[in-house]
């Protein structure tokens, strides 16, 4: 079943915008669900803090390719924000040095994300959204201007 999806701007610096997706008119974005899930998880507190601070550095220095690790398939832009010493993965689409779309994430307990139903679902959501963006860029309904994604205001995407 397809989900109604919207794209929301969640955090911005002078050089980077972080967007996140929201499903079925949920008032919270997937990134906020991720933060809510881990803010009181004491056992993963340090890893969670590292991810939050890594995002802060990305906002400060740019969403440079080297800060992300490709995680989806060759044909999509799904990346993980990996903290090597930790097991938490936050999945995102790195659009450019100035734009990142963040999805949800969780604890990687299996060797690959495909072996974990929850993580696989998060990656799949972003892969589907990546296709929508690609299609929007081709037909001109979506465009990137600096750190802004144009053509998403009040738009509902079905993924």
């Amino acid at each position: 079943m397809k989900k109604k999806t919207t794209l929301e701007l969640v955090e911005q610096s002078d050089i980077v915008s972080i967007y996140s997706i929201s499903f079925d008119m949920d008032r919270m974005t997937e990134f906020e669900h991720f933060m809510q899930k881990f803010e009181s998880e004491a056992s993963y507190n340090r890893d969670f803090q590292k991810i939050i601070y890594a995002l802060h550095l990305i906002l400060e220095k740019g969403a440079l390719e080297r800060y992300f690790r490709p995680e989806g398939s060759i044909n999509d832009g799904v990346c993980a924000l990996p903290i090597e010493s930790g097991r938490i993965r936050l999945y995102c689409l790195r659009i450019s040095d100035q734009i990142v779309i963040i999805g949800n994430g969780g604890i990687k307990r299996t060797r690959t994300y495909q072996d974990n139903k929850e993580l696989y679902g998060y990656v799949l959501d972003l892969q589907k959204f990546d296709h929508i963006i690609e299609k929007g860029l081709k037909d001109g309904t979506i465009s990137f201007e600096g750190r802004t994604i144009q053509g998403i205001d009040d738009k509902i995407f079905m993924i």
Partner: protein
Amino acid sequence: MKHNALFQAQLAKVSPQVKKETEWSAGIVDNIDRLLKQKGMTQRELAALVGCNETQIVRWTRGFPNFTLSTLAKLSVALGEDLVSVGTDMVSGAGVKGYDKQESSSCVYFSEPEAVYGKNQ
């Protein structure tokens, strides 16, 4: 400028140790990238010099790796420049807010941030 209340609240809770660790990790990754570009060296060539496979080099050059001293020494030797330089008194990082290279004879070299964000931090 848009800010998310939940993100800002979580950011305010990050411990000084985690901040430092993450800044150093990003700074070292920046330095490796800079040196590879400066020397026109590929990751494959670096892997050959270090004596490991390319997958391992990718792990050290993407994301926010947790470097051991042994790894830093191997990479520094292969790149012909110290990724981290530590004196006897204290460690400071150039280009990271709150640190001043001038104040210490020792330093952890980082690339300059391209912009300042989060002035409330």
